[in-house]
């Protein structure tokens, strides 16, 4: 049974925001459609008015501005893979994009769509969390930047209010003395929903002392999150293998995984420890 809907095609951002403001909680967003169209077909969508954002040029583009990399919310996953700024300043995001679903889906799926959908397994979330990303939410009357870490609040829950639209995502250009690493564990190479995924960023000073780390985990808790206790352990220290193993253990302890068809909670917890240890080790190796 397909849902009954009214579909709107705004020609620019201002028109889209007017429509969203008018429809309030009844207005839903349609971008790449890789989730929404399936929901529509299955009759899971109960909204009335769907606002199609797929033609809005204002939501596209990747640039470097004032020390930030800024990407439009409507940027597709394929564009992340191809863009030199992402390769140069967000290797963890590029790697996640390369492993995202499959090429046909990557050509349509958007970054904002992936984040607003707020699946615990959203593949762009761990790398963007590790990069300290913020998201820009715009309504007809206001614009606000909030930390991605705060934006996703639970399973498919976010701070996005009726009438608001995620127009951009940005993160500070990482220091030249930082390196990142990313892993996705799936049941197969392509087209897999993550069993778990992890992204880390490590910044060392010239003496090899850790200035900053971020450890972000996906599909092992109700929402993708940062393992702050593990990060705190590493700050200000030289990262040897014992310390890295202890941080990895703390990261695993901070997860709240579930048993599902892709893996058990116990399996996920163990693999998080192994994965985080390997990723931190790899990032430190790169910086040596």
């Amino acid at each position, binding site marked *: 049974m397909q849902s009954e*809907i009214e*579909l709107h095609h705004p020609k620019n951002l201002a028109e889209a925001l007017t429509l969203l403001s008018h429809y309030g909680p009844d207005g839903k967003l349609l971008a*790449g459609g890789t989730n929404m169209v399936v929901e*529509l077909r299955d009759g899971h969508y109960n909204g009335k008015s769907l606002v199609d954002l797929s033609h809005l040029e204002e939501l596209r583009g990747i640039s470097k501005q004032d020390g930030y990399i800024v990407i439009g919310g409507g940027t597709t996953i394929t564009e992340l893979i191809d863009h030199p700024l992402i390769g140069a300043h967000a290797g963890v995001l590029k790697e996640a994009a390369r492993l995202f679903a499959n*090429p*046909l*889906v990557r050509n*349509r799926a958007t970054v904002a769509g992936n984040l607003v959908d707020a699946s615990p397994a959203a593949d762009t979330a761990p790398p963007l969390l590790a990069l300290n990303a913020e998201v820009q939410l715009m309504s007809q009357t206001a614009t606000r930047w909030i930390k991605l870490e705060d934006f996703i609040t639970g399973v498919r829950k976010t701070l996005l209010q009726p009438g608001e639209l995620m127009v951009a995502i940005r993160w500070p250009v990482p220091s030249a003395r930082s390196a990142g690493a990313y892993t996705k564990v799936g049941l197969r190479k392509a*087209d897999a929903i993550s069993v778990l995924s992890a992204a880390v960023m490590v910044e060392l000073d010239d003496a090899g002392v850790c200035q900053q780390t971020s450890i972000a985990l996906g599909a092992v808790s109700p929402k993708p999150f940062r393992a702050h206790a593990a990060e705190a352990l590493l700050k200000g220290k030289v990262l040897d293998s014992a310390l890295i193993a202890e941080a990895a253990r703390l990261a695993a302890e901070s997860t709240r995984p579930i048993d599902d068809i892709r893996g058990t909670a116990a399996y996920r917890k163990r693999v998080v420890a192994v994965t985080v240890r390997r990723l931190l080790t790899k990032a430190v190796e790169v910086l040596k």
Partner: protein
Amino acid sequence: MKPQMITLHINGRTHYVALNPNLTLLVALRDLGYTDVKSGCEKGDCGACAVFLNGVAVNSCLVLAAQADEGEILTAAGLGTSEHPHPLQTAFSDAGAIQCGYCTPGMIISAKALLDHKPHPTDAEIRDAISGNLCRCTGYAQIIQAVQSAAEKMDAGGEG
């Protein structure tokens, strides 16, 4: 539900259609007779419904037809004719890359998307490019062979 009037340019022909806004491009294409576009999983996992929309390879089951309004659509059948097939169409046929044929149109779309950007792909690149296309006859070896042989032919001065 109010039907919407849209224009679709498909394989060089223009169609004006009235349809419900919740219909996918896949359904619209098949209703218009473009049955080379196959309906498989209808959720973006199998790639049987792949077409080019404005030059980009997409799953037509994940695009609402109204989102493709004024769009240029190219289906696998639109790549060539029986008299003048596209090198990929010839290569799939010659290499035995077709068993039941259901995945073939989508495979050819993904293969063309790859060759458009990478005329000399490795086998690994071909595997990645068709990773969103499922062949349940499991004829992947011949499919990869077909893409390689089409790449050689196109390089030797064939059409592309």
